[in-house]
């Protein structure tokens, strides 16, 4: 849209440039490859903004009218109330974030929130046209507690498992620090919380990761929370 705050234009241009036969093939000079990286990174950052706007529209239920309306700046706190999980997105009152180094177990929001003992709200967005169930691994700090629960959008507890990250991942985090990709290791996690997440076609579901209460207040039974992993080495 004409007055959209973000778009996918930079990403389109970057990907178009990358079609050159010396680009995506990796046969360009290093400084040219660096330029490709810079353009792609700028394109991804802008597209991420566009994606978050679209997700906010989806949450508001106004996505079907989007093409007819002038796009406007969306802030999550101004969303119309809607049925869960959109209400959850609305009440979160925070900002959407994506973690580009999730595969290195680096994620500032989840690691910082868990370090402080706060709940973490996740949205799992499925880009394909059929329902999905896939594994999700969320970097977590266990300094505050190693007892965490995962609940879905209906508040139902989901089986989860606390997994220590591998030596390969710890080495990778240190290399990223050496290479100045990370300024420090505060966003680097030593543990991940793993669970299976469902997501609807071309849509999202929400999950909440919370510090587990020691005791279920209704039944007075201990809450299991995330189960720990057993580790054996040879």
């Amino acid at each position, binding site marked *: 849209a004409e007055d959209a705050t973000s778009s996918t234009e930079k990403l389109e241009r970057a990907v178009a440039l990358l079609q050159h036969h010396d680009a995506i093939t990796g046969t360009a000079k290093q400084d040219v490859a660096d330029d490709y990286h810079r353009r792609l990174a700028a394109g991804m950052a802008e597209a991420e903004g566009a994606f978050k706007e679209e997700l906010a529209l989806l949450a508001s239920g106004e996505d079907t009218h989007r093409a007819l309306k002038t796009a406007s700046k969306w802030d999550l706190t101004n969303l119309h109330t809607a049925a869960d999980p959109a209400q959850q997105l609305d009440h979160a009152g925070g900002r959407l*974030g994506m973690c580009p180094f999730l595969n*290195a177990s680096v994620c500032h929001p989840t690691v910082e929130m868990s370090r402080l003992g706060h709940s*973490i709200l996740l949205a799992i*967005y499925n880009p394909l046209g059929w329902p999905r169930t896939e594994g999700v691994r969320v970097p977590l700090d266990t300094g505050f507690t190693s007892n965490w629960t995962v609940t879905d959008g209906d508040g139902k507890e989901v089986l989860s498992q606390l997994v220590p990250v591998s030596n390969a991942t710890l080495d990778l985090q240190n290399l990223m620090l050496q290479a100045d990709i990370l300024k420090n290791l505060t966003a680097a996690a030593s543990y991940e919380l793993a669970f299976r997440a469902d997501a609807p076609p071309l849509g999202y579901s929400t999950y909440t990761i919370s510090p587990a209460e020691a005791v279920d207040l209704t039944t007075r039974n201990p809450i299991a929370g995330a189960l720990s992993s057993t580790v054996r080495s040879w």
Partner: protein
Amino acid sequence: QSTLQVANKLISVTLSPQTGKLLSLRRLSDNSVTQLDSEVMWYNSSDEKGPPPSNTNHEPSGAYIFRPNGAVAGTALVPVTIVEGPVLTEIRQEFYPWASLTTRIWSDTEHIESEWTAGPLPFQDQLGHEVVIRYESNVTNGDEFYTDSNGREMLKRKLNFRPSWKLDVQQPVAGNYYPVTAAIYIQEKAGRQLAVVTDRSQGGSSLKQGQVELMVHRRIFRDDRRGVAENLNETMCGCTNCNCPGLVARGTHYLTVQGSDTAASYRRTLQQRVNDPLVLTFGKAAAPTAG
């Protein structure tokens, strides 16, 4: 114990605690067992000069050219760690200080994730490294394998063979490498199919019956004289031949063994892993997201 088994509802994987290597994969639906091992190996890149006494100019490996000078097998004994739980199990193998493999089995999937991490590749030894993940099995595929045609149909490949001329094999490894944009598989006649779905374009082959290999990383000393005039030496900082750690690459292969009746549909559906759900976080964290 001579063997260890880890399992979910649909498959089980057996490995040897003595060697740290995988032994087999069992499908619980039909109780079929396939011998299976995964290894990190590397090819030494050819150099510019041939062997003495002729020292004739050779074609080296480089950004454009893959010309190996012998394969170096993975280590005989691999340190292994198993992390087990009700949601996922991981078999973590450290083949080299610079290369490891994590075999991940979620609680309810019939495929395994083989997450490879390679780099920084050694440079001090002055040997070009071209790193592959090789899967060995007892699937009797003969000398045929299949690779995708840019994500569309699967094309049959035959070792040391071209359909339109009689091939004089000069490069038995590189000459049998094909692009793998989506998947590669080997299969028996009306029997098992071992398929590997990739998360990016890679070069791959099946150089021997039962094998599938995919190249994941390279670091080379020589320019291969096709125009770039630089050796392929990527670092974490984006500079080349500079004082910065060598590039680390991490990716995933999705591997499955299926019977002939389910192989194609399972493999095609497995390609959805390249479009995994995106994870977004919400929070009132004071500092911005790492970027």
